[in-house]
């Protein structure tokens, strides 16, 4: 029997068991994650691993109380046990307090969705992949200052059936690829690292082997190495207020931390308060037209954008993917939601929108790390729309500034206001010209003030999607992936450097 048919049969069985046990609503996700990880370090293959994970999760509502149970054995007996356990959990949970969950309506979609790619990375021979990594690694460590070189690739295919008691029947397959290189240089007690095309494993997108080929890891290894060595003798980051130009990859993380997480409605409602935190973007800021950034700032969530790591046909609540403004012309205009928090947004929408909308609807941001974990609100693909500047013209227009690139260290307070980021590589801008390179370039700010200081965004020639493959949230913590589109962008009078 085909895998999908087998999963569908088991899923229908789980829903029957849950309904007979007393669940008013149930869904089940059954799926498989196949992955391949390859890495070369200091000239030797250090990781070569294939993984194949299958499992399922059953979620129920009993009188508005939530229950979820998961297992890894795809047998009728185990499906029965797990479905009954989910109902038992929901029943028991009613004793923990009087509150109940709301559940926004959604059509019961029946569909098949697959992400596009050109070349299946799992079909590319391993020796070809390793050879590419070894060639890049050899260039990275060609000078004695380099104490650690690293080159890696990662591929993942996820297949999942989602069935619900109200008739949803979805089968989706996504494929994503990633690769990157990094060099660590050390001399006289100083250690610096430089990565390409991005830190923490490189660039990831929903794509096939063609993504790796497009990166030209080998062709960029020498520059990566030389910049790491250059940083060993670079000047410290200046301290004070400067105009700041952020590269696209760093801006992607800025968007992620200071807009993405801040606009997750479960955080706003306090559901994440015990772990990752809450948000300063309380629901009053939706109805009140809160000024999040300057007029130039348009931040668009889009689970349909080609290549995005969060691009999907339907989320793990079975909600069809959407595109909407989180910030429009600088004004906060929409949250990231799931079916269990969507009503908080509709209750607080501006009066005109409230009148036009008949019922709350989720934005489709509910995702889980595999079917064995419970879906929670996750950041969608969230991008800063491009502006009109050419990068060279932007630098020429900057009198006293710092350019910063490459994620190195990030930290933000639990309401997503005070942030501080350190980048891998930076240079000062004096009189519209690039000046000396600076190490450990650091900037700090308060989220709305920072976005309000945005006065120039580079155009679509400089704009690209950047993958975030390591977003942690939830208890138990789950890792999710998403992308953020960004072009180099300028912010005026930002606090840079750190006072000792």
């Amino acid at each position, binding site marked *: 029997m085909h895998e999908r048919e087998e999963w569908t049969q088991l899923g229908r069985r789980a829903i029957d068991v849950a309904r007979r046990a007393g669940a008013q609503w149930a869904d089940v996700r059954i799926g498989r994650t196949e992955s391949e990880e390859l890495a070369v370090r200091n000239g030797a293959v250090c990781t*070569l691993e*294939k993984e*194949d994970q299958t499992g399922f999760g059953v979620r129920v509502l009993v009188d508005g109380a939530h229950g*979820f149970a998961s297992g890894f054995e795809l047998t009728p007996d185990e499906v029965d046990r797990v479905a009954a356990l989910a109902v038992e959990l929901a029943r028991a949970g009613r004793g923990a307090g009087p509150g109940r969950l709301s559940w926004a309506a959604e059509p019961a979609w029946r569909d098949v969705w697959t992400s596009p790619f050109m070349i299946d990375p799992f079909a590319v021979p391993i020796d070809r992949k390793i050879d590419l990594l070894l060639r890049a690694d050899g260039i990275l460590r060609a000078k004695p200052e380099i104490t650690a070189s690293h080159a890696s690739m990662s591929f993942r295919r996820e297949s999942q059936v989602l069935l619900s008691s109200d008739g949803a029947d979805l089968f989706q397959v996504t494929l994503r690829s990633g690769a990157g290189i990094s060099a660590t240089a050390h001399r006289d007690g100083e250690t610096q690292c430089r990565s390409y095309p991005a830190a923490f494993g490189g660039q990831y997108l929903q794509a096939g082997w063609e993504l790796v080929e497009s990166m030209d890891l080998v062709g960029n290894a020498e520059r990566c190495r030389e910049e790491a060595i250059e940083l060993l003798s670079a000047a410290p980051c200046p301290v004070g207020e400067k105009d700041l130009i952020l590269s696209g990859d760093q801006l992607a993380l800025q968007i992620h931390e200071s807009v993405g997480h801040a606009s997750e409605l479960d955080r706003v409602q306090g559901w994440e308060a015990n772990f990752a935190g809450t948000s300063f973007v309380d629901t009053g800021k939706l109805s009140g037209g809160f000024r999040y950034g300057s007029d130039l700032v348009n931040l668009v969530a889009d689970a349909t954008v080609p290549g995005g790591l969060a691009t999907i046909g339907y989320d793990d609540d079975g909600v069809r993917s959407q595109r909407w403004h989180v910030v429009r012309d600088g004004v906060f205009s929409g949250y990231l939601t799931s079916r269990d928090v969507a009503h908080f947004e509709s209750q607080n929408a501006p009066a005109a929108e409230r009148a036009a909308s008949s019922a709350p609807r989720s934005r489709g941001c509910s995702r889980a790390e595999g079917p064995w974990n419970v879906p929670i609100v996750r950041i969608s693909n969230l991008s800063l729309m491009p502006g009109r500047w050419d990068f060279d013209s932007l630098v020429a227009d900057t009198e006293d500034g710092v350019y910063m690139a490459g994620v190195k260290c990030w*930290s933000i*307070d639990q309401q997503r206001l*005070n942030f501080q980021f350190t980048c891998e590589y930076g240079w000062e801008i004096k009189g519209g010209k690039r000046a000396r390179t600076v190490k450990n370039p650091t900037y700090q700010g308060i989220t709305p003030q920072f976005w309000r200081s945005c006065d120039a965004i580079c155009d679509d020639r400089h704009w690209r999607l950047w993958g975030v493959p390591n977003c942690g949230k939830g208890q138990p913590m789950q890792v999710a992936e998403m992308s953020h589109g960004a072009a180099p962008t300028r912010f005026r009078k930002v606090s840079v450097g*750190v006072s000792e």
Partner: protein
Amino acid sequence: MLHPERATRLAEAALRTSKADETEVVVEQLEQELNRFTADHPVQNLVRRLSRVSVRVRVDGHEGKASTGTATDDAVRRCVAQAIDVAKRTPRPAADLLPLPEAQPAADYRLRGRDPVAPDPADTARSVGAMTARARAEGCRAAGIQSAENELRVVMNSRGLSVADLDTRSEISLTCFRDDGAGWASEVAPHRTGIDVDAVARRAVGKTLASRDAKPVAPGHWTVILEPPAVASLLLFAAYRGFGAQQVEEGTSFLAGRVGEQVFGDGISIADDVHHPQAVGHVFDGEGMPRRTVPLVERGVARNLVHDRTTAHRYGCRSTGHATPQPSSDGPIASNLVLAPGAGATEDLLRGVDKGILVTQFHYTNMVEPTQLTLTGMTRNGTFLVSRGEVGPAVKNMRFTQSLVEALRRVTGIGGDARLASALFGGYTVVPSVRIDGFNFSSGTEF
């Protein structure tokens, strides 16, 4: 419940199946019950089970690895075949491969034989209800978790090594809010019965009520009294990025070239000790080697590093049992730091402080620079002014940017209240409260 015998049988079957020169099988199974709640009800109430069988093989000096989440004999057989296929397709032999470890003396492992923490949704719901009710009674809104988990790990290889261990853990973590105040408390224990639920709730509510109407203070250098969870979130970076032999070799550790030197104040002694009565974690490492107790820092002097078999071979010493699952580019990692306590309670650290800040918890700590272990992060859930030895009004949260190496040279008091504590990014340490002079707060926030 998990089945150790079944896990062992799976590993044995994989070893029998494999025709590789050397084979290692790791079976891991997790069962976790978790009730995640907000003001007046659970928002997630779950039990999850996960399984992973990993097979690492060597064929003619080539290494390959495959894993499966399906715990059946057929799936494991396919996994072995895939690992061998991966190894054969590797174009270059793996460098400097040591033979897999042989069986170690059973006495070295000191297996603890803990009983599984059984899921009990009704009991969990009762204690969640008690916590949220206590919070409501004081006008507070609550959010938190109660969890219990069992993690089984079996490591066997074709050279006769065979170990199995069950790590158990219960945790309650509670955050409360009222007005602009927020407070947090948490307890972790190896057993479900080891946690006083009401005491956790009282502490979280107490912090919340006291932290209302916070006033800003100027960033700068302050004397700080850090409660154990705040200490944990700093010390974990020394574990991740400092005490491993490979990190020292590559110059990315603050201990590069400094082993044998006085690196911290002479009040600081740190060991890695999974056998500490409060510690959690497995008693063997990713290669199946027994985790040994390693004195890392004695009276401020860096004495030892942690090793896996690869770095031990290079250094001419024996593995301390700190390998991550192999193969790995990370090198050995310290995983069970214990900071030696002083005497007396947190309150004793307050005495003699003319003006300082008491920190309950740090949030989102991260590393700015590795060689000085410069860290940044935010205070959270209870930050208070200390004046003339007394805890005073709440202050608004602040960001620190501070070298941990420098900070641990300026420790002027260590409490006797050592306990198991975790941090936002995970990991556990056994740490007491600590008083530090000249701690650098670099900016403030709005709450």
